């Protein structure tokens, strides 16, 4: 059943790469939900299927079995053009290595999905500037990626992922290339977007970053093996409850 707050819903998703003897089952029968206002972390050792899960959620890959729905729409039922539009307008993707276009300024990078979607240049640039201000680097709008630190580039990538009110933010090891302090700032930003109503999925192998999430899902060999729920904030204040 889909609730209106379920921004992302994977149901019985299996993904097999290759065929026959060399087939690799990267995900097996995974069901997963991320709701509006919620940040979910996915943890697991390398090769456990984290990136596979995220690319399926983002419509960059299609499941062998099962369905992926974003805002109630089954991605498998969409035509190519509709899916592409969905990827530009509803889904924001943040990669470990930022994936910015070197020849474009920060503002141009952020404006690009909007412009591809047919927004007027002027309007797209304004939205891009607002998004850059929200992530705290409005003053760097005219810089090129190679004129920015890793943390600043990742902020641009986050601005690009959220610009235009996108409801689903997918981040694959977004803090992987950053130092702890900068990583924490990136988490703070993702968290803020989710608190503002987006659904977020964060893939990480760092426990301290996963701890920013409302729920932590553990993957092993393509299977969800466990999940922590959210418990009340003041649990720690009750002596003896947490240990």
């Amino acid at each position: 059943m889909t609730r209106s707050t379920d921004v992302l819903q994977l149901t019985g998703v299996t993904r097999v790469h290759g065929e026959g003897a060399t087939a690799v089952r990267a995900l097996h029968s995974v069901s997963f939900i991320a709701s509006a206002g919620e940040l979910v972390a996915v943890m697991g050792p390398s090769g456990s299927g984290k990136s596979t899960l995220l690319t399926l959620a983002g419509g960059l890959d299609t499941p062998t079995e099962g369905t992926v729905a974003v805002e109630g729409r089954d991605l498998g039922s969409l035509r190519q053009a509709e899916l592409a539009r969905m990827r530009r307008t509803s889904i924001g993707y943040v990669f470990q290595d930022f994936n910015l276009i070197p020849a474009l300024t920060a503002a141009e990078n952020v404006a690009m999905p909007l412009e591809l979607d047919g927004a007027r240049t002027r309007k797209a640039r304004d939205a891009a500037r607002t998004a850059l201000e929200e992530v705290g680097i409005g003053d760097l709008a005219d810089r090129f990626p190679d004129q920015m630190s890793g943390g600043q580039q990742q902020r641009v990538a986050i601005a690009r992922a959220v610009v235009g009110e996108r409801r689903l933010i997918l981040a694959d090891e977004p803090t992987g290339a950053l130092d702890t302090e900068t990583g924490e700032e990136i988490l703070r930003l993702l968290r803020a977007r989710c608190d503002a109503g987006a659904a977020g999925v964060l893939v990480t192998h760092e426990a301290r970053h996963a701890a920013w999430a409302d729920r932590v899902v553990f993957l092993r060999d393509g299977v969800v093996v466990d999940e922590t729920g959210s418990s009340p904030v003041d649990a720690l204040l009750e002596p003896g409850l947490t240990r």
Partner: protein
Amino acid sequence: MSVKQALLALLEQEPMYGYQLRAEFEQRTGATWPLNVGQVYTTLTRLERDGLVAGAGSDDEGHVVYRITDTGRAEVATWFTTPVNRTQPPRDELAIKLALAVTVPGVDVGTVIQQQRSATMAALQDYTRLKRSGRAPASSDGADLAWTLVLDSLVFAAEAEIRWLDHCEARVRRAAVERAAQQRPGTPSEGAAAPRPSGATS
């Protein structure tokens, strides 16, 4: 935990009575290591017996106020300049539990590890929420800074525990693969199929 030294260190600021000491302690450490007032008074009695504090009369409301003595000051100075003893590691229930889990037959080590990882992760989520929602981080207020550092200590410890659990799981899996390879001579022990889940599944 060194309640004795902590109370002495607080008394270096100014003379205080039991409830005050407890409040000052908890302001710096949150409710991480709750002190009951009985414990505070018992400790004060012992400190007085040993000449480290002395009674300083009562305040208007009749609370017995204590002040630190010169011997007490020397004790605090020694405490701050001596590293916490590491030669005898504190008994670690989790390490002991896993050491037994991998040797006692019939224990599903994968499940033991995963249950602990989830529990520790949940605690880490709590600490992180407190950090986010709590008082302003590292503001100029000394007690707030102290509490932030205590919280960070809990975060680091939980994180280290999770990393250690990840490491244990990887080692246990590798050992299982190697055992399987030994039982079937001629099978390559490395690089072939991925190890089976170690029992945390289903």
